[in-house]
């Protein structure tokens, strides 16, 4: 199915809602460029303006200022029905008075397609998303997962220039959610269709996206590949929002040619050169799985185990250090090593070569 690849550009987008008493700046100066065929996720806590941004791309909201371009064309003043975007809604928004087939074929009514061709398209897309044989059912005779597929099929069949997803999986149970996000990714890649995907679930964002846009209070906090966002967060907010994290204070002692000498846990150590000047203190982002627990005499510092959570494939430990800091550590393959008990003292070690310091 050839689909016209389209880029999406948000240019200094602002949306203010006039609230009673106080105005809400839902989207605050968002600029973003999405390549044709790319899947970009807007990730952020509830209320940060993801949906509003998405709705401006679809045309349901008019930006207070700024512009939206689709395929290089300024569509800011184009009504939603002429934008050729297709949205998968959080609530699915299926038409309850139509059958599955009618739901999926609905968008084709507006696209000058012969009836027989339209029927064929609908059948093909039902096969693609795994709905064969359910065409005559009414949406309320379907399971949540099947309804989700209908919503997806209904959006795909019109061959939109951009696919828009607003938390499409949030009403499904965990298992189905993982399965569906894999399928969405597969279909999106195979059709290489541009997609904007909104979610507050970082796992979903990481697993599905080419790039992730982390938003906070209507603004973009960071844009990057899932790996970048996870390993090199720019701000404490991003580090905190994406996965579990330890923030460890690092004081810069002296910057050399190749290496920087720093103080961590009251110990002088050297790390690969960073561009901060001596005297400053920065937070290092250390993921729990980077920490290694060892017998008390080893490691940079030792701490007392205050809790231990066994999760099957991993064990999570909380450690209290003598200076009041708490650390979280995750150990994989728990069977390989004798576990620490609560009250045990453990040494903590991590790889200094990959230390990521926040500004």
């Amino acid at each position, binding site marked *: 199915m050839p689909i016209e690849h389209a880029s999406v550009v948000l240019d200094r987008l*602002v949306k*203010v809602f*006039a609230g009673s008493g106080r*105005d809400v*700046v839902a989207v*605050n*100066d968002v600029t973003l460029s999405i390549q044709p065929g790319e899947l970009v996720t807007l990730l952020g806590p509830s209320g940060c303006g993801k949906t509003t941004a998405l709705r401006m791309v*679809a045309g*349901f909201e*008019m930006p*207070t*200022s700024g512009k939206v371009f689709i395929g290089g064309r300024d569509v800011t*003043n*184009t*009504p*939603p*029905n*002429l934008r*050729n*975007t*297709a*949205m998968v*809604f*959080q*609530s*699915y*928004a*299926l*038409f*309850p*008075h139509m059958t599955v087939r009618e739901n999926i074929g*609905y*968008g084709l*009514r*507006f*696209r000058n397609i012969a009836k027989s061709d339209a029927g064929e398209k609908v059948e093909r897309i039902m096969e693609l998303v795994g709905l064969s044989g359910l065409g005559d059912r009414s*949406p*309320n005779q379907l399971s949540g997962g099947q*309804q989700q597929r209908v919503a997806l099929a*209904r*959006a795909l069949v*019109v061959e939109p220039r951009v696919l828009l997803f607003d938390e499409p999986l949030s009403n499904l149970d965990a298992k189905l959610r993982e399965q569906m996000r894999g399928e969405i990714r597969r279909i999106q890649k195979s059709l290489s269709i541009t997609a904007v995907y909104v979610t507050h679930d970082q796992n979903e964002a990481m697993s599905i996206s080419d790039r992730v846009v982390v938003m906070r209070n209507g603004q973009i906090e960071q844009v990057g590949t899932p790996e970048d966002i996870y390993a090199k967060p720019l701000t404490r907010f991003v580090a905190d929002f994406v996965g579990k994290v330890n923030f460890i204070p690092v004081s810069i002692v002296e910057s050399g040619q190749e290496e920087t000498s720093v103080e961590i846990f009251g110990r002088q150590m050297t790390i690969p050169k960073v561009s901060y000047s001596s005297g400053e203190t920065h937070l290092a982002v250390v993921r729990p799985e980077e920490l290694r627990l060892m017998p008390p005499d080893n490691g940079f510092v030792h701490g007392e185990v205050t809790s231990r959570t066994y999760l099957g494939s991993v064990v999570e430990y909380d450690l209290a250090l003598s200076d009041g800091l708490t650390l979280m550590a995750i150990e994989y393959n728990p069977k390989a090593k004798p576990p620490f008990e609560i009250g045990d003292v453990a040494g903590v070690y991590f790889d200094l070569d990959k230390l990521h310091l926040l500004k």
Partner: protein
Amino acid sequence: MEENQSKRFDRWTEAKHELAMVCRNPILLATILLVSALLIVFVIYPIVQVIRVSLKPDGEFSLDTYGYLLSQWWLRQTFINSVVLGVIVATLGTIVGFTFAYALNRGDIPRKKFFRLMAQLPIISPPFMFCLSVILLLGRNGIITKQLLGLKNFDIYGLKGLVLVQTMGMFPVAFMVLDGVLQAINPDLEEGASNLGASKAKVFWTVTVPLCVPGIASSWLLVFVTSLADFANPVVISGKFDVLSVQAYFQFTGLYNMPRGSAVAILLLIPAMLAFVIERYWVSKKSYVTVTGKPTSYRIIGPSKATKSALTAVCSIISGIILLFYITVIAGAFVRLWGIDWSFTLDHFRYAWDVGKDSVRSTLVLSAWATPITGLLGMVIAFLLVRTRFPGKNILGFTSMLAFAVPGTVVGIGYILAFNQPPLLLTGTAAIIVLCFIFREMPVAIEAGVASLIQIDPSIEEASTNLGADTSYTFRCITMPLVRPAFIAGLSYSFVRSMTAVSAVIFLVSARWNHLTSLIYAQTEIMRLGAASVLSLFLIIIVVVIFGLMRVFLGEPVTRVRVGN
């Protein structure tokens, strides 16, 4: 932040954006403009005309008419009478309405279905019917007063008769409001209080009643407005107890004193508007009913035996009176000369058919025109109010609901004054009556539509737009099928109201386009009570038959389906 200064935002910017949003959608823009124009011409303009005529008796601005009204004690008394009547009926009606609502929702009384029907029957009963029955029962030749009690000089005309018929006719207004309120109050609250050891009476007075206060206030104000605006009952049974609606009618059509008729109508408009505005913008905002979303469970703490018997007794008595009214009218249709010659006759039917067949036809034609237009226009406006944003939306909403508050008498006079010259020369036509019906009954269609639209996930319509449908296609193929039950409810209601309208239409009927209710009034005037009874029966039968047909062909109107996933 300094930066935010540049994004400073105010109502004007918001309005400009809403306007831009509307302007890129020509169909929506056209619809808004059309609806606004209609509301201005058929709702605002007639009222303005009434005010204008009352202030410009001889083409010059003058307050003379009002000065006259205030200087004449009998006219002052008319005003006081209307308000006193309104207060009494609002109070009694609310008490009866609350009793029914409480009995049906919490009282655990037997025969709930029957009592619910009885509490709604008066709404679809023809005007004049109750006072006709009261005259037949309690009038000079009344079966109770004259035959049973042998009273010679008993006079039911006046305040007591009015209070009786209006309370019986209008308590359903309070019932409907309070029934909704009680259904929405989570019984867990009351149960919780009783688990904490509160006695049943204490739960009632400290939990149930306080939660109902806004609803009770709403009911009181709504019944007050209804009583104030009532024309049919007072014109027949008020006797010497003069009220504003009747006075305005006689000034205007009897004495051809248009300025004075208009001024009296304005006196009627002011308290009605006041009550309406208080209800809508103050009382209904105060409602703190806890809506749980799930239907009320049946774990209701039953009242004590005595309470239950008392509730059953009150409901039975009121229902008995309503049934008695119906039986009386039916009997009246077959009795030769009530109170004097009790022999059976079909003469009244022959006579009523002779004088009435044209009116039956024209009433049906007028209602048949008005009903679908009202339903559709109401739904379109509901859609605009719930689903779209545009500058001036609040004003449009207020105007479209205005007909709730404006007494029919004011509307009738307004239409006569507004449409008696080109380019809108409509006097004596069917159009003026149909238009009057449409704009008077639209608020209910709008409310039904709004109530149903806010239950439908807006993303269903957005999905349609998103897939390429324009606003009008979405409205026809998505919105309308989803709000169908509300649409049908709106249709049924506006049909009944068209069939039973009096206060405005009485000014607008003509020889060619008469209305059954106006004919019933004429027959009552000349004391042909038998014929009036027959014509009332015609009206009841037509309403019931059409109601049934609508159900058969359009489906059940009452079931509220919750749409969405």
